[in-house]
């Protein structure tokens, strides 16, 4: 098609399925892992490193063993992926999941020219000739916004993985597909963090620093702009002493690492003023370590938090919970990840299920918000992207 650049693979992509967790896919991905992890250029990009680490052989083998009915699963055929434009390595995960499920893949990589995308695509291109079964099942494309091209790819797809904001999702979904084509949609989501204040007070200096580092990795590392980055911090037993201890450690950690941009500083300051004027529930906004950390303290949880209370680059909302279930009334289908510190995940999962919540798909400890996996946004991605061959 005109205007389509192939970064790896070519226009002919096979829709002949492979078994789930096929040897071909495992060997290819572990070769890719080795190549990336041995490339000195990878060191500059922690996100490439973590992708390389994720698809190393031992991890894939573990995932394979966890998939109980893998022997009866086969890919759906051909998957078309639309990766988010500003998360560099997400396209690689999307590809790897679908390949493990047994599909051929056309992956639209971010339009922005990220070095990470170049690095991964080049590595794939180099090893593809040694993996003929994968070679005929993979294409990495880049093209400017063009509904006609997208329509062309959609027409061939047996599955679509659509990552992006609500508008992108709508635009891609409006392209016609074969009747049996399935969509996995990763739309705009909202995430929160629940912290037990007592546990913060009991933590020794080392654990406190680790907590701050973990929280930083969940938030600042992605400019707090990823769907799974917490926007709202909710406190159980959150006296001011616990809060100050936690935020003091976060501000200190961020102070050494975070590169605050000029416009982000102005944006945060403007948001502070807007919140003070327009949100009656914002009582106080605290600034710590200059413009690095802003905390808008809420007197209660507004109903539309998931659509509304969002900060970027280190602007957090926080509120007290008198008990955990206080969050139930505000949780809607926008809620994706809940990170926790000082309380058990089972208790949280029980709450989501027993209280019939429409949102919260992931409950992970602080520090793991960004860890993407084969279960994501509530989907069993590999299960969904493969079909069950029933016999007996």
């Amino acid at each position, binding site marked *: 098609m005109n205007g389509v650049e192939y970064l790896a693979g070519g226009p002919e992509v096979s829709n002949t399925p492979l078994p789930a967790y096929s040897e071909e896919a495992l060997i290819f991905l572990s070769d890719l892992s080795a190549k990336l992890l041995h490339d000195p250029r990878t060191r500059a990009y922690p996100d490439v490193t973590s992708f390389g680490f994720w698809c190393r052989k031992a991890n894939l083998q573990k995932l394979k063993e966890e998939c109980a009915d893998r022997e009866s699963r086969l890919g759906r055929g051909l998957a078309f992926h639309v990766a*988010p*434009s*500003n*998360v560099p390595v*997400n396209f690689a995960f999307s590809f790897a999941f679908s390949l493990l499920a047994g599909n051929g893949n056309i992956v639209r990589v971010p*339009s922005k020219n990220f070095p990470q995308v170049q690095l991964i695509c080049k590595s794939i291109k180099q090893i593809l000739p040694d993996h003929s079964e994968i070679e005929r099942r993979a294409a990495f494309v880049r093209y400017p*916004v063009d*509904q006609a091209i*997208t329509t062309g790819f959609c027409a061939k797809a047996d599955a679509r993985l659509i*990552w*992006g*904001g609500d*508008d*992108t999702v709508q*635009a*891609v979904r409006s392209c016609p597909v074969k009747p049996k084509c399935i969509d996995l949609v990763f739309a*705009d989501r909202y995430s929160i963090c629940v912290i037990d204040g007592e546990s913060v007070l009991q933590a020794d200096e080392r654990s406190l620093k680790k907590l701050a580092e973990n929280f930083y990795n969940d938030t600042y*590392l*992605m*400019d*707090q*702009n*990823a*769907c799974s*980055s917490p926007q709202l911090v909710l406190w159980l037993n959150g006296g001011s002493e616990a809060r100050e201890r936690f935020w003091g450690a976060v501000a200190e950690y961020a102070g050494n690492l975070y590169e*605050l*941009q*000029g*416009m*982000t*500083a*102005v*944006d945060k*300051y*403007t948001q*502070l*003023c*807007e*919140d*003070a*004027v327009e949100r009656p529930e*914002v*009582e*106080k*906004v605290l*600034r710590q*370590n*200059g*413009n*690095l950390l802003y905390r808008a303290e809420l007197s209660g949880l507004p109903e539309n938090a998931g659509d509304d209370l969002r900060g*970027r*680059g280190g602007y957090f909302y926080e509120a007290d919970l008198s008990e955990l279930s206080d969050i139930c009334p505000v949780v809607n289908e926008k809620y994706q990840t809940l990170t926790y510190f000082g309380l058990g995940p089972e208790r949280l999962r029980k709450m989501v299920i027993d209280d019939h919540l429409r949102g919260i798909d992931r409950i992970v400890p602080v520090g793991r918000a960004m860890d993407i996996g084969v279960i994501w946004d509530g989907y069993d991605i590999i299960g969904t992207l493969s079909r069950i061959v029933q016999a007996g």
Partner: protein
Amino acid sequence: MIEDFFTHSPYELSQPEKEKLLLTELRALTHHHYNNCRPYKNILDAMGTDIERIKRVEDVPFFPVRMFKELDLMSIPRDKIFKVTTSSGTTGQKVSRVYADMETAMIQQKVLIKIFGDFLGKKRLPMLVIDSAETVRNRQLFTARGAAIIGLQMIASKQIFALDKDMELQKEMVCEFLREHAGQKFLIFGFTFMAWQHFYKELLKMDERFDLSEAFLMTSGGWKKLQSESVSREEFKARFKEVCGLGHFLDHYGMAEQIGAINAECECGHLHASIYSDIIPRRHRDFSPCEVGEPGILQMVSVLPHSYPGHSIISEDEGVLLGIDDCPCGRKGKYFEVLGRIKKAELRGCSDTYAAGF
């Protein structure tokens, strides 16, 4: 009181003397807006600002300029609104609305005259406006361009509009005006881009040449648009000089949110803050004030805004102080350069992906 300022000429006070005067007035204004503008009070309360603890000009809390686009901000009852000025946002962008009562409007006017008088002398001069009369037609709702033109009426003996409503040069009339005033002191005013597009380029096309060596070309509106056409400030001046001998350039920098207290460019090419206002570049990491020579985000204070809380604003422009009290032109106080808009933030993350795409 603002009257205390009127006893001085606009650039005669050294920085310490000026700050003493500014501080008293800015504190009074902060109290005034706190007591009369609810959103302003909410913000100061949320940040925990104690007005009594403002000890220096740089302690005066500042308001982000974007707030004027989001909210109707005023410290007067609605029925006291005398005029509303909007910023000149491009189509589709939100524009600021700035509400002036009679008193503030008068002060804006008076200060503008005082500042320009320092450069142009006291005598009123004829002014060729590189704009259309349409721009000032609706007096209830001025754009910043309209407001600038109306403001300048007070320093002009008459205003002639060079463009018709379709922004075409009214050639006959303009040529006649230029013939009549050639070789004499008079004023030309236009936004930089319009002066270039609709005046310089037209002059270039004409067979007739005019001697504008005594004229003042007054400009505002910034250089961004011209720079995108690869016309630098220096080239702008050189080319104008070449085509008509134009010798006096009087650019200025100001914001719609602080009308009147403009920063005018002196003969040395430096923008000066008058005694009515000041400029504080700040470091983005913590908003602490920058040293001379260190670029930062521009905060501007002005003692003019009584009717709306615009006496201390943080802009979205970057600039750098060039010096204090020591410009070769002799004007006292701070002088500076504007570097342009702050770069748009590039964020990582997955939200708002291709919203504009597909």
